[in-house]
């Protein structure tokens, strides 16, 4: 039977680049949660991974910021540059793409009224995908990146993210390209990067989001006000990735493996997943 696993994982650079800033017990707990997810993905043996995250101006710029963009390249740089390699402490290498699946998704989304942008050719990842690929041992698995604009307003609304996620879920359930698909959203919930609020984590916001996602109340977040998101920090805009992924899984509901605020890594470490039958 075709299978899919939908997962979520923080992509804080602290997870790989400066884990020692957190208390050893905190880092160990995060490692255990990540290991649980890694084992579940390994058990699936995915033919392809659809990664859902934002780009931090590594491979996109304000000259053209698409709300949603799919990478259709045959390979990607993981991470993008030597500087990122040093910062993230992840040895730089090439990760295979999956052009057939990527082009299929672009086509299916456009036919179903989602005007997704196609990003052709080779480009590079920052912590968005490189931290999860490294932690989850996915550097040999064909990867399709979906980049959601969560770094500069105007950004896609929560309502639109949920709609797009549902269209992706529909497309994945219709396809015959891959038997086993892992869908992994990456990003923080509340956090701030490059602002005076860096290191602040809004646990109440995080719990509100995670409770909706894990209790099957995704549609309660359709009208999540922008000011509620932005008050939880500029990094909280990455909640969009979680909404897309939860909608891909819907009506299946994401199970939370762990949630732990780690101010030293600028964000909480949320780890979640759920199996979803594809047929």
């Amino acid at each position: 039977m075709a299978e899919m696993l939908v997962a979520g994982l923080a992509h804080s650079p602290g997870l790989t680049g400066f884990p020692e800033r957190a208390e050893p017990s905190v880092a160990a707990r995060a490692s255990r949660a990540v290991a649980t997810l890694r084992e579940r993905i390994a058990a699936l043996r995915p033919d392809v991974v659809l990664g859902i995250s934002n780009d931090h101006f590594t491979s996109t710029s304000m000259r053209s910021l698409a709300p949603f963009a799919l990478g259709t390249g045959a390979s990607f740089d993981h991470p993008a540059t030597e500087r990122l390699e040093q910062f993230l402490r992840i040895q730089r290498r090439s990760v295979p793409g999956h052009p057939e699946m990527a082009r299929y998704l672009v086509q299916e989304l456009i036919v179903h009224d989602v005007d997704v942008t196609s990003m052709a050719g080779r480009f590079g990842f920052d912590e968005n995908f490189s931290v999860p690929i490294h932690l989850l041992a996915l550097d040999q698995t064909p990867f399709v990146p979906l980049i959601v604009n969560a770094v500069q307003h105007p950004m896609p609304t929560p309502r639109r993210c949920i709609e797009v996620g549902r269209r992706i879920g529909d497309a994945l359930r219709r396809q015959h390209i891959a038997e086993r698909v892992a869908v992994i959203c990456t990003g923080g919930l509340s956090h701030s990067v490059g602002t005076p609020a860096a290191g602040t984590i809004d646990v109440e916001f995080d719990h509100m989001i995670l409770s909706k996602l894990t209790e099957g109340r995704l549609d309660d977040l359709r009208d999540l006000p922008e000011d509620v998101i932005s008050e939880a920090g500029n990094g909280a805009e990455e909640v969009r990735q979680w909404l897309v992924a939860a909608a891909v899984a819907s009506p299946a509901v994401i199970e939370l493996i762990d949630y732990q605020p780690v101010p030293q890594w600028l964000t909480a470490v949320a780890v979640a997943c759920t199996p979803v039958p594809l047929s």
Partner: protein
Amino acid sequence: MSAQPADLGGIHELFWAVRHDPRLAEDFVAKASELLRDFEVDPRLHAAVTRLDVRTLYEAGVNPYLLFFAAVELGLSRDEYYRRISVGGDDG
């Protein structure tokens, strides 16, 4: 009548370029005025850019991701960046 907000297009272009071209960052100290002009950075922000007054730039609306990455490329440590953006100030 309130003043028009600064035009941020040029500074965002400059900071993106600095992040992606280390040589540009190296040249910045020697060619700051030239680069600010070439990238059409709003003149009201020139002094803040050359002093790496990140608090002023943040309050002017510069994207904090681009601001942080560019400041690091231009020689500011992570800790010093967060000190400056929290309390204000510059290298002068």
